């Protein structure tokens, strides 16, 4: 039976999840976009309402499945379903958002299980247009939470940068699995 690995892309609306998956997927991504009625949170025209899906196919049919999950909290039931299958989480945050540190808190709380497994990497987008939150703010918050999570400035449109996020996540997961003796 061929192996498969599930990587989740989470984050608030407009953080760049769909774009990030498009950047690294082998296949044209499957999108479930609908008109955005939640203008209060983000002004973009459309938003993901079910799942975005992309994939990377390795040798011998091994597949890395990339799921972009909707950013609104009302879709939390879907987060729960996918978290149990996920090897790791790439959390994308919009530095231009009203309170990206609160967004960080929210998603770390919701994906507590993956955090405990050291299987979370954070990418902060739009740092070039909004510099009110330097990376030190995110790390300060993580220290307050006593968590060790990599945080990077990224451009979700840049394939190379998204690959670095993904490989960092895989390194983190494997190091933890090696330590625990997981095959």
């Amino acid at each position, binding site marked *: 039976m061929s192996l498969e690995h599930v990587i989740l892309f989470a984050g608030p609306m407009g953080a760049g999840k769909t774009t990030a998956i498009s950047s690294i997927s082998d296949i044209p991504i499957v999108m479930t976009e609908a008109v955005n009625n939640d203008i209060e949170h983000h002004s973009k025209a459309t938003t993901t309402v079910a799942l975005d899906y992309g994939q990377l196919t390795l040798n011998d049919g091994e597949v890395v499945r990339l799921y972009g999950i909707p950013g609104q909290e009302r879709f939390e039931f879907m987060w729960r379903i996918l978290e149990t299958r996920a090897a790791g989480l790439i959390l994308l945050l919009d530095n231009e958002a009203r309170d990206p540190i609160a967004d960080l808190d929210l998603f770390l709380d919701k994906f507590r299980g993956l955090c405990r497994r*050291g299987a979370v990497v954070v990418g902060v987008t739009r740092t070039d247009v909004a510099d009110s939150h330097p*990376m030190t703010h995110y790390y300060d918050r993580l220290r307050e939470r006593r968590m060790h999570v990599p945080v*990077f400035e990224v451009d979700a449109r840049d394939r190379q940068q998204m690959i*670095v996020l993904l*490989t960092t996540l895989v390194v983190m997961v494997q*190091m933890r699995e*090696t330590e625990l003796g997981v095959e």
Partner: protein
Amino acid sequence: MRRRGEGTVMPEIARIKESAAMSTSSGVLSVPHESKLGATDAMRRDHTAHTKSERTLRLAMLGLDSDQGTLVRAIVGMLTGRTRMKWTFAALAHSDAVIVVDQALGIPETVRALNGRIAIIIDTGAGIAKGESLSVPSPISVMNILDALDSAGDRATRKKNPQTPMPAISNNEPTIAQMAVDRRSLASTIARLVFAPHYRRIRARVADVGTMSICFNERRYHIDFSRTQLVRALRERRYVITALPSDDAHQFSADGPLVDLLWTVGLAPCVDFELTDDAPLRLLQWPNFPRLPHELEHVQLCGLMGGRVMSMRELVSESTLAAERVKAFLVACILCGYVQLNAEQAQMHELLAPARSMATGGLLERLLKRLGF
């Protein structure tokens, strides 16, 4: 018109001496004693900067007043090991090049005395030196003397490029504000300046490469040469560093984040940075790998360091990487502020335990293969 010796010369001499004294006492920049004045001993000892020729050229002065003469001697001494050719002072009759004030060129005896020798003309604004490729604007600056000596050296040895133009010097060019020379590579000096509170805005003039300006407070830098030359510049030992005035903001209009430069400095094999095997180290934040050149092992080292204080010795042991590779990574992280040196264990003990072994093979290997790495 300013008379020779008026105004700027004496303060410049004082500032050179003051700078040298401050640098030595602070331990930030070492200015070798012999480099202050007439450094013939140092010239004999320093072979690194004179790889192109072992010939020593002789320099004389003509028409300079005593203050100007003292200043030029001090500068030439400080440039020991930085010029392409060795220079020593000699009598006019035995000289290869002569430093002469432009006003003296109007005197027939001076012209006769030059007798076809290479003239480095100090341009006081009298109009006589206009258009001369080997002129040095007054007030005299270290960088201009460096250029002039190199050009004169090229001419004296009949090298291919005798007409090297003088660099454009802006009106705001500081003369010798606070200057120090060092026998280390430029990378090593920058690494030490990161932690030197007195030097927040500097310019490094690197022989045969170009100019680099750094503002440590604003975390920006600027180079006037190609980035492909950056590593070469960092290896160079022939350079002059000048402190810039704090209001010299225009220098940084086209530039990049300082972290890009410091990361390159840290990973450069020529950097000399003291890091003991057992110094406690703490990862404050991950290097921004998506935008910094890196190896997979750097990611793995961060994975090992996260959430605890550890030493280089422990990191080498747990990673099984070569010590010099681990040290280069750590130095880059320390310079960029990603790793805290001499961290306290108590700061970390409540954090979640990180992984304690390197990951290889498995999904990571297959993924990297698939992505073409």
